[in-house]
């Protein structure tokens, strides 16, 4: 070799860019050629070209190598089409379900809210630990918070509901929101047209104004550029349009128009909690600091107004939690569950690739003997798993694309606020890429390392079978199957418990679900039907007209739909303990017309239903059994007197004339409040809801009912048409969602574990063909062989079941808050899961066991 010249040393250094194998083979010759070239003193351009050429040609070599790896990988994948297809499908399911769940997680919890600097928006609520009070703030308390706090920049109150638009087109109920003047300042979103309302518009005698949403402006008003200043009829009030908000703004959830709240401490008392509050933190303040601040203020208020407070405290949380706090634990649990599914899928692929590596060990040994370096072999395997991973990721994305809308459809339509978006964004794509790469590495590394560590000489000598590396590998594969079985037990146990929860909860609502009752809300113009005789007559006519529709069995009016709404008020029984406001229980206060109980199928336990004469004199009420038993145990409740509201208000006494069974209201899980009922005649509200019981099998009665109502008065709007069956479904949507997803995951896990078990057993049988042949030749029966194989598989499954069951006892505690009627670690569920898995495993192992008995002893012995 010529003396190394600095130029040559540089050249040799550049050769490090080449792939290792190329370098090992040609580096010396290239240096020799370069030395010879330099010794001829060529022109500078030639020398430069020689140096730069290394960069280009090294890249080309790398490309060449990868292309070879790809071609080789594709060829071996084509040779085993079934195994490859299974692997891709398994990966697609694992990656796809993980992506789908993360997509929900991303859309609900990670994506920023569509308001500027949304991190400093907080939600303020008064809160009693018993859960009777939450999600609202009383107006006088709000004023005190706003005045005395040191951590908030500004505060506003808001509420959502439905507004009735009247006028040129037909009456329409639109999702709407009201708020105090500071709301738009706090949210920081500028209007598309005109202006937003402020404190001046929220003052006592200010003229009514409204801000429209862009969608509403386009749809109902044809994007009229002269809309500003025009007057529209909201409810029964002429209201001036002052601005239009841009598309995508629907604060708080789905609103399409906004009006200012005109609140006053006289009307909105310290004991009324029907409106929510939002605030913006001062720069540098945190939600925790604001919470401490407001809690101190709440304590002051409690001291200053002891008869007007419930011993409540204050929560200040990031505004996003208002919508997500219910769903957050659900999502985290789902993420955990889907991670298990992905792990099982990966374990399956690893098993598959290890089988393939085993089957190809001869070929690998030959390649090693021919000079392929270990890193080259490892890279080959990684390329193969990258191909599988890439195909699996594509399949997974397709799966997620379909799965996300399907999952979202399990949630009620009006649950998710409009600002939640589930379209892919950078975070999503980053997640998919990360999961994909991680999967490829996890799945590719084990087979790659184990194959590259092959003892070449041994393998070639023994024809590629039964070497020590092989048995270590077999042990590893068995433990993978055990892990898969264990994880499946976990998922199936979770699924079993969620399904039972759903069933138990649904059973609670069975009395509602079993009935054909349809409900809807009405909204009559207040100026024509003020509360009183006109309204009473309207409701009475409506009931008569509805009852005349063929197929209608029973009609009633009510202020609230069971399970969906309620009005909590405090309650005092005459001659009972005179409790202060904070100790008085809250009851569910419903105003109904005669026929309510009959329509809902609630038989009277005692006394009578309201009739058409019950109004203001005498004042009567009906209570539920829970109240009757609690306050007048062992006696009849009939004739007892009760009253409502804060005791200091001295509301008039009502006499109990009837007792009805307890009705679950607001939710099915627990009875939070007992119910009391008052006759519609006492109040005469005009805008009530109606419940209509129809004959079974009747086609949609709504058109006929709408026609009847329109015949009475066209300007009465109908909204929220929903059957009681749908109400129950809405109320249990979370449990149904959970149960469905868990069952899906559990089934997936089961199938994957069985596939893994089948694969391992098949391979084990094929490796023991020689042994089977000898046994059969020595007189073993088919039954004995079968038992032997099933025992081998049984040991694996048993190990997995034990591990999984123990894990389930601990891990299902995570689900505790979601369960109903079943405890975590419930033995019956675990036993059922174990039995299911054992049975399925038996079936999966049967085919390989039978194959073992089909070995021809002569062939097996000869096959060496």
């Amino acid at each position, binding site marked *: 070799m010529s003396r190394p010249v600095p130029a040559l040393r540089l050249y040799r250094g550049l050769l490090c860019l080449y792939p290792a194998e190329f370098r090992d083979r040609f580096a010396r010759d290239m240096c*020799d050629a370069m030395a010879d070239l330099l010794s001829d003193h060529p022109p500078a351009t030639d020398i430069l070209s020689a140096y730069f050429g290394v960069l280009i040609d090294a890249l080309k070599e790398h490309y060449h190598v990868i292309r070879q790896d790809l071609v080789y990988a594709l060829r071996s994948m084509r040779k085993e089409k079934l195994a490859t297809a299974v692997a891709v499908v398994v990966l697609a399911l694992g990656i796809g379900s993980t992506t789908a769940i993360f997509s929900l997680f991303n859309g609900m919890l990670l994506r920023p809210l569509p308001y500027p600097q949304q991190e400093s928006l907080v939600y303020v609520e008064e809160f009693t630990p018993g859960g009777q009070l939450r999600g609202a703030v009383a107006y006088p308390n709000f004023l005190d918070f706003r005045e005395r706090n040191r951590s908030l920049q500004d505060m506003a109150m808001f509420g959502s509901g439905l507004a009735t638009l009247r006028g040129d087109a037909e009456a329409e109920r639109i999702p709407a929101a009201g708020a105090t003047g500071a709301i738009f300042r706090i949210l920081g979103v500028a209007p598309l047209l005109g202006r937003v309302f402020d404190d001046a518009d929220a003052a006592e005698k200010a003229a009514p104004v409204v801000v429209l949403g862009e969608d509403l402006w386009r749809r109902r008003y044809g994007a009229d550029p002269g809309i500003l200043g025009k007057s529209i009829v909201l409810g029964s009030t002429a209201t001036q349009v002052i601005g239009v908000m841009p598309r995508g703004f629907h604060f708080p959830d789905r609103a399409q128009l906004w009006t200012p709240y005109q609140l006053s401490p006289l009307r909105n008392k310290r004991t009324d909690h029907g409106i929510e509050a939002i605030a913006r933190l001062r720069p540098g303040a945190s939600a925790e600091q604001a919470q401490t601040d407001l809690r101190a203020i709440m304590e002051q208020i409690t001291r200053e107004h002891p008869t007007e407070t419930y011993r409540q405290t204050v929560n200040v949380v990031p505004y996003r939690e208002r919508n997500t706090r219910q769903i957050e634990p659900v999502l985290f649990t789902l993420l955990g569950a889907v991670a298990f599914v992905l792990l099982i899928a990966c374990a399956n692929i690893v098993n598959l690739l290890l089988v393939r590596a085993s089957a190809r060990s001869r070929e690998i040994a030959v390649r090693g003997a021919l000079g392929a370096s270990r890193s080259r072999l490892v890279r080959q395997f990684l390329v193969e798993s990258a191909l599988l991973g890439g195909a699996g990721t594509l399949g997974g994305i397709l799966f997620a694309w379909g799965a996300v809308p399907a999952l979202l459809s399990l949630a009620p339509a009006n649950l998710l606020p409009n600002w939640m978006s589930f379209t892919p964004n950078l975070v999503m794509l980053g997640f998919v890429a990360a999961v994909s790469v991680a999967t490829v590495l996890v799945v590719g590394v084990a087979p790659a390392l184990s194959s590259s560590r092959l003892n070449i000489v041994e393998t070639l000598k023994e024809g590629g079978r039964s070497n020590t590396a092989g048995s270590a590998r077999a042990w590893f594969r068995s433990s993978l199957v055990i892990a898969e079985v264990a994880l499946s037990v976990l998922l199936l146990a979770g699924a079993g418990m969620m399904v039972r929860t759903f069933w138990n909860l649904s059973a609670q609502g069975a009395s509602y679900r079993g009935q054909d009752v349809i409900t809807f809300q009405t909204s009559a113009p207040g100026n024509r039907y003020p509360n009183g005789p006109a309204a009473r007559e309207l409701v009475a006519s409506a009931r008569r007209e509805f009852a005349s529709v063929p197929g209608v069995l029973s009609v009633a009016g009510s202020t609230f739909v069971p399970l969906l709404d309620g009005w909590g008020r405090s309650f005092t029984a005459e001659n009972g303990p005179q409790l202060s406001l904070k100790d008085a229980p809250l009851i569910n206060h419903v105003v109904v017309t005669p026929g309510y109980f009959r329509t809902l199928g609630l038989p009277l336990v005692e006394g009578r239903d309201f009739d058409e004469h019950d109004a203001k004199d005498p004042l009567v009420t009906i209570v539920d059994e829970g109240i009757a038993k609690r306050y007048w145990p062992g006696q009849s409740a009939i004739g007892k007197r009760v009253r409502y509201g804060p005791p200091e208000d001295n509301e008039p006494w009502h006499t109990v004339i009837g007792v009805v069974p307890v009705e679950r209201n607001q939710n099915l899980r627990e009875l939070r409040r007992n119910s009391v009922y008052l006759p519609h005649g006492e109040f005469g509200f005009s805008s009530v809801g109606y419940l209509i019981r129809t004959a079974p099998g009747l086609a949609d009665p709504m058109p006929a009912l709408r026609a009847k109502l329109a015949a009475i008065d066209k300007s009465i709007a109908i909204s929220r048409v929903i059957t009681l069956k749908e109400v129950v479904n809405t109320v249990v949507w979370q449990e149904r969602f959970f149960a469905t997803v868990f069952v899906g995951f559990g089934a997936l896990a089961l199938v994957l574990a069985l596939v893994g078990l089948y694969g391992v057993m098949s391979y084990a049988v094929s490796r023991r063909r020689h042994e089977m042949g000898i046994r059969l030749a020595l007189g073993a029966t088919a039954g004995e062989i079968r038992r032997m194989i099933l025992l081998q598989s049984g040991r694996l499954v048993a190990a997995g079941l034990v591990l999984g069951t123990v894990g389930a006892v601990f891990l299902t505690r995570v689900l505790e808050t979601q369960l109903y009627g079943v405890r975590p670690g419930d033995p019956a569920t675990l036993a059922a899961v174990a039995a299911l898995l054992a049975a399925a495993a038996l079936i999966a192992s049967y085919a390989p066991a039978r194959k073992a008995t089909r070995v021809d002893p002569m062939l097996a012995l000869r096959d060496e």
Partner: protein
Amino acid sequence: MDPRDLLPLHKDTFHILVALADRDRHGYSILQDIAARTDGRTKLRPSSLYSAIHRMLEDGLIEELDERPDPAHDDERRRYYRLTAFGRDVAVAEARRLEQLLADARATGLVPKRSTR
């Protein structure tokens, strides 16, 4: 394999085959031969040369010989390469292909016919 399966050859490959047709050579000798034969029009870099050699070894067009002393370079050892029989067939096939192309061009008058000496 049929020699014609590898056609058309990359021009570097053909040059190298031609260089090895009359005798065994080492890397730099091939470069020199090609430069000389083409009057400096084609000057391969060492890196391009060895990329091509790598391919040609894989395809069986040439074979590696043991290192031998090179008198032209103080008898320092260099690795020599030799054309295989298959390589020779491929080179001939490529030459024939080029000849045919040239004949086609001559036939249509695109290129003047060879003048007889």
